[in-house]
């Protein structure tokens, strides 16, 4: 946000000029993702967990399950709660304190992808209709910010949900009794978010931090297993032509399919 030094400006110019030629400073093609590394089940205290490395961007997600009350308008459904923290360890631009607009937007975009694709069968998380349901807390924890937090967070959230184990239980007089063993969370869809940056009027997939710093605008398209769109979010103080948007949709479908295939989803 502060004035960039001359060295930085030169590099930014170079990044933008390369993209105009269809190239990127780190050697990737315009629609290439950085290397994706995934670890899962690493937080034993959590019911589910995952760490995603997207290049140097590093995001951890922990899933905790508690019991609570359903929303009045969905008495037969469990509750999904997505929260994101941009902890100050992850970037010199993050500050301690309550969630700001960036962490709230991140959480809500990831949330919409999961919620709108109906990735989790929330009806299976109802204990006593209207009274008691399971509440799924998905906590996104950004550990290192090198760009494209949305895609990394969405991947980590789905990976963590996929390895989430719920304890078995039975209901006795309205009280939940824990029984031995675990069952996986009822996950039935695999939404994948694909984010574009517009730089020099070109779209690039999976922008890293230095690309984000010079991008005009950002566009995230989340699609489900059937290639349907389930969430879209434009960000940044720029704009897109309708043509660019529709082009992005097609690329997003392809990239999401690739990722789903790679991860065996």
């Amino acid at each position, binding site marked *: 946000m502060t*004035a960039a030094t001359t060295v930085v400006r030169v590099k930014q110019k170079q990044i933008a000029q390369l993209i105009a030629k269809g190239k990127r400073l780190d050697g990737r093609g315009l629609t290439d993702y950085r290397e994706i590394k995934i670890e899962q089940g690493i937080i034993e205290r959590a019911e589910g967990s995952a760490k995603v490395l997207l290049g140097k961007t590093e995001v951890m997600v922990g899933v905790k399950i508690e019991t609570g009350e359903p929303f009045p*308008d*969905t008495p037969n459904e469990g509750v999904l709660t997505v929260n994101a923290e941009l902890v100050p360890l992850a970037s010199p631009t993050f500050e301690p304190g309550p*969630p*700001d*607009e*960036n962490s*709230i*937007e991140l*959480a*809500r975009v990831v949330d*919409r992808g999961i*919620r*709108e*694709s109906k990735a989790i069968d929330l009806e299976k998380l109802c204990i006593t209709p209207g009274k008691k349901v399971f509440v799924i807390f998905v906590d996104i924890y950004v550990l290192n910010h090198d760009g494209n937090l949305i895609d990394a967070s969405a991947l980590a959230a789905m990976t963590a949900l996929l390895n989430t184990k719920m304890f078995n239980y039975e209901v006795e007089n309205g009280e939940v009794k824990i029984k031995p063993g675990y069952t996986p969370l009822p996950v039935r869809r695999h939404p994948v978010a694909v984010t574009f940056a517009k730089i020099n009027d070109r779209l690039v997939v999976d922008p890293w931090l230095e690309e984000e710093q010079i991008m005009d*605008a950002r*566009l995230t398209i989340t699609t*489900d297993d059937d*290639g*349907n*769109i*389930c*969430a*879209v*979010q*434009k*960000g*940044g*103080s*720029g*704009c*897109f*032509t*309708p043509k660019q*948007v*529709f082009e992005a*949709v*097609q690329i997003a*479908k392809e990239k999401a399919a690739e990722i789903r295939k790679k991860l065996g989803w």
Partner: protein
Amino acid sequence: MSQKTEKLIDKKGLRIDGRKPDELRPIKIEVGVLSNADGSAYIEQGKNKILAAVYGPKELHPKHLALPDRMVLRCRYHMAPFSVQERKSPAPSRREIELSKVIREAIEPAVFVEYYPRTAVDIFIEVLQADGSTRCTSITAASLALADAGIPMRDLVAACSAGKVEDMIVLDLNDVEDKVGTADVPVAYMPNLGVITLLQMDGILTSEEFEKAVNLAIEGCMKIYAMQREALKAKYVSVKEVEE
């Protein structure tokens, strides 16, 4: 969006409030309604009742937040406690914080921010009554309030939603359609430049449906844009689409 059993499209293909699929709700616009603000606009779109005010350009405190080469554009989208069915707490919700951000980013592309370096411009939006697609109605109003304040702009920003209701792509979702429909696609558009400045979606759409919805929303934006320009001239305009 949860599916419920209400019937949202009748046999004639008309919507719950009698509109045709591509019909806007009645719109009233008034510009320059507040005496204290540097610019202001009031808009009714269906039962949406929204006020937008602009203050600035002005000094920024603390000073180290000022930018040497441009103005800082700030935006606060806020709902009155009585604007919705259940009283809303006055403290800003996560939703209001996200919408403040995306509205600001929908308007910023239209503003010549470099004309007033080291200053701030504040956009304050108050939703007095909410009836679906409030973020679009807010952008339409905020854009007029900026023009009323004399902030130099590339173009007005007009905004309108489209969505899917019972297998039909429809324009300008109202509260019930927003809550019970299949998908909602709010769009903000600058007609002169032909660019989209806000785009969100939630629900489920095929890419063909999505394209159709975006294009329909842009058509809606064009109609609203015409009203905006009219309102700036007349300071007041009221339009209800008539059967053609």
